[in-house]
């Protein structure tokens, strides 16, 4: 299992090294970074901290299924970050990261969530705006 996990990270590194298809903005209204930060920290809305850690000194329980979000804005362009959020599987078909702006092609979605995307288009823009502010590789 350890080996599988290691291989996975190697594959991931290879995937991340490839140029990612960039996505243009989903709305005409620029995202608001502060709102994006709140969405990412909210365990019921963004769910990001289930898997990721990030620059949230006030949040005690952060996951380690995914790389830290610190430095994401330096590693990826705005369009790449947007593509990653809209549908992570467009970047890596095996990704465990949910698609935040795709409601089709899912199986047995709970009644309360059926036909709905996790984020609205504007929320995607807010989160992208916040991710773009993450320039430091290490959490402050």
């Amino acid at each position, binding site marked *: 299992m350890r080996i599988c996990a290691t291989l996975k990270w190697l594959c991931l590194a290879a995937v991340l090294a490839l140029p990612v298809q960039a996505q243009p903005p989903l709305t005409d209204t620029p995202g608001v970074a502060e709102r994006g930060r709140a969405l990412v920290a909210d365990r019921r809305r963004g769910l990001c901290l*289930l898997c990721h850690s990030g620059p949230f000194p006030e949040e005690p329980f*952060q*996951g380690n299924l995914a790389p830290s979000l610190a430095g994401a804005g330096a590693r990826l362009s705005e369009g790449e970050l947007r593509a990653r959020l809209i549908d992570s599987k467009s970047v890596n078909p095996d990704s*465990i990261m*949910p698609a935040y702006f795709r409601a089709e092609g*899912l*199986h*047995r979605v*709970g009644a309360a969530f059926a036909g709905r995307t996790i984020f609205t288009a504007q929320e995607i823009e807010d989160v992208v705006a916040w991710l773009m502010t993450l320039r430091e590789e290490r959490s402050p």
Partner: protein
Amino acid sequence: MRFLLALLPLCLPAAAAERRSGFDDMAPQTQAMQRDDSANPGMLWVLEGEALWARGCASCHGDAALSMRGVAARYPAWDAATGAPIDLAGRIAQHQGAPRLARESQGLLALTAFVAHQSRGLPINPPEDARLAPARARGAALYTQRRGQLDLSCAQCHDDHAGRRLAGSTIPQAHPTGYPLYRLEWQGLGSLQRRLRGCMTGVRAEPFAYGAAEYVEIELFLARRAAGMALETPAVRP
């Protein structure tokens, strides 16, 4: 024997030698709570089950320590009456001659815990019954199917990322060693089906109804995957 058991789940990423019960991933205080029967809240249900047993079951089955020893370890099993696989709670719930009990009712949980407790320490021992194979295969497919708005399969968490942290929780390997068990988050005893429902709603998927064939299929698959591991009923989990 050990070696043969180790070969069973070769198709699975988690090799048998590395199998860990959820117990192994718990904090020492929670482990101590499970180990000490006087501190383990699950024992309250076992005692209630013992009283129900004396009233409604002992007349036919006698001393459960003899008649029920090893029974829980081989469930789910084939049920001739319905021509389908059935789990232990289902077997007790629809027992001819005994009052019908609702799934997840306190009475059924207590009786199931009492019966399963008679197998504590015994290895999970799935029956070699060819009639179970198709249902177990469906269980394996359910286990690897992505589901819910979060689009995750059981295997992605419990095989690929076991031992890692989902927010504050260490992801266990999902071995059904302790059921029914006392979960601190539930503040009560719950069945394996309740746990599976929780994992389904957790990924924002529509859970199946209690008693659904799909749960028994997953339970069959999990039992085979955990074959040889010791039963812990009533276990404690966070």
